[in-house]
């Protein structure tokens, strides 16, 4: 190889990748019926929001109702993550390969269970649950909970499997029983990533709760849908504003907590 051929080959690979990407993009856009010009109309969305979404005096009268639903959304989002978190942690401790799980099949089963739960779209959960649990908050809670259970179990499994088991062995060598060693040796070590995953889940749940609410007719998502479809845009705008406030406050809170933990 000479410098000339080296750079020529590198450029060829780069060019080929770029062309392949561009061609796939164009093909996918045509198949989808997407017109590139729409990208230049991004500002219309913002303008439209500025014109229609500004809350008016009449819409502000709805504020107590909106705030109540926002509160419920927050509670459900947090509770789903909290309840799923406890169970996931237990499943992860049982299923982790490095904590002395001798039956490979149990490990495999927990992993597969988590993967299926996590990968079934949350709207599928919401639609299926709607039949048996009807139109209420419980349906939304369960949809979030099932998805969280899958997501957190997998996240915790990976966290635990990164853990250096030498520290556990050191405790067990002193005559500590395995469950106690896990409580005292493992949990303090993985506390920070576990909290980070839970915070991420709660933030994500608030966004997903809006979506689930749209489909199941509950909570803040339902309110937005109701106002939006009845062309009461100022009220829908009010819902968006309070949602933004909630999501950004949660983001700030979680940054603060993460900073205190390191």
């Amino acid at each position: 190889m000479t410098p000339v051929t080296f750079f020529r080959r590198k450029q060829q690979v780069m060019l080929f990748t770029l062309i392949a990407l561009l061609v796939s993009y164009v093909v996918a856009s045509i198949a989808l019926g997407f017109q590139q010009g729409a990208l230049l109309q991004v500002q219309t969305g913002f303008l439209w929001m500025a014109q229609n979404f500004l809350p008016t005096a009449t819409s502000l009268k709805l504020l107590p109702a909106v705030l109540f639903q926002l509160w419920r959304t927050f509670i459900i989002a947090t509770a789903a993550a909290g309840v799923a978190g406890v169970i996931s942690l237990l499943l992860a401790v049982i299923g982790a390969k490095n904590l002395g799980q001798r039956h490979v099949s149990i490990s495999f089963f927990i992993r597969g269970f988590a993967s299926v739960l996590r990968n079934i779209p949350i709207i599928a959960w919401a639609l299926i649950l709607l039949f048996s649990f009807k139109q209420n908050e419980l349906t939304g809670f369960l949809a979030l909970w099932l998805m969280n259970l899958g997501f957190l179990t997998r996240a915790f499994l990976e966290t635990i499997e990164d853990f250096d088991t030498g520290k556990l062995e050191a405790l067990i060598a002193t005559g500590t029983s395995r469950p106690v060693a896990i409580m005292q040796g493992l949990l303090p070590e993985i506390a920070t990533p576990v909290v980070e995953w839970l915070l991420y889940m709660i933030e994500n749940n608030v966004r997903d709760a809006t979506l689930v609410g749209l489909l199941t007719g509950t909570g803040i998502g339902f309110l937005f849908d109701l106002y939006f479809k009845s062309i009461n845009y100022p009220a829908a705008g009010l819902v968006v504003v309070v949602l933004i406030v909630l999501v950004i406050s949660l983001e700030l809170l979680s940054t603060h907590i993460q900073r205190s933990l390191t």
Partner: protein
Amino acid sequence: MLTVTALSKRYTPDKPSLQDVSLVADAGTITAVIGPSGAGKTTLLRSLNQLLKDDEGTVQLDDVDLRQLSKRELQKARRDIGMIFQNYNLIDALTVLENVLHGCLGAKSTIAGMLAHYTAEEKQAAMALISEMGLSDFAYTACKHLSGGQKQRVGIARALMQHPKMLLCDEPIASLDPKSAKLVMDILRRLADEKDLIVVVNLHQVDIATDYADHIVALNHGRKVFDGTPAELNDAQIQAIYA
């Protein structure tokens, strides 16, 4: 010739980290800067190419005071000054050849630099430097696979690619094993002699400084406490420098 006069630099008003430092370094010589850690060695070196702005004094490279230059003029003047670092600062994902060629990016137009468009002469020069450093077998190897000593030689080749008048070396051998360290210092000695470069090296090993340097400057608490030849440096003075 590098002439530094009355250079001062403070971090906080009552904690000067350089105070009234003057020195002269000739082409074809190695100047070693020694002193305990925190004495201001790194600060001094970074002042020499104005990566750090000083408060007072002059830094003259061949009659041009670097401190008086505009931002654009300074960027141009820095092409004459090569720099090598303790932790090499190479782009690990790229090959040795590409890292060496980075040395001539400063002399290129923005567009040519962005596209990594190097001329045939530049590629030849880079390959020549790579073989001069004994790295011919590794020209197309990504730098992450190299040892510390090899990385430092890539760093030197990159600096030479600039065709510098002066080479600034910030603790170049602090992370190396003794054998690689000797190899790197031998290369610096050869460069000073053969290419007539001004070489300024920060070192924390006094024995290496006395072995290789023509001229030693010692700093302590931001002040110059010794300036002379290795022969003039005696044990009592070393004791005083590190006190």
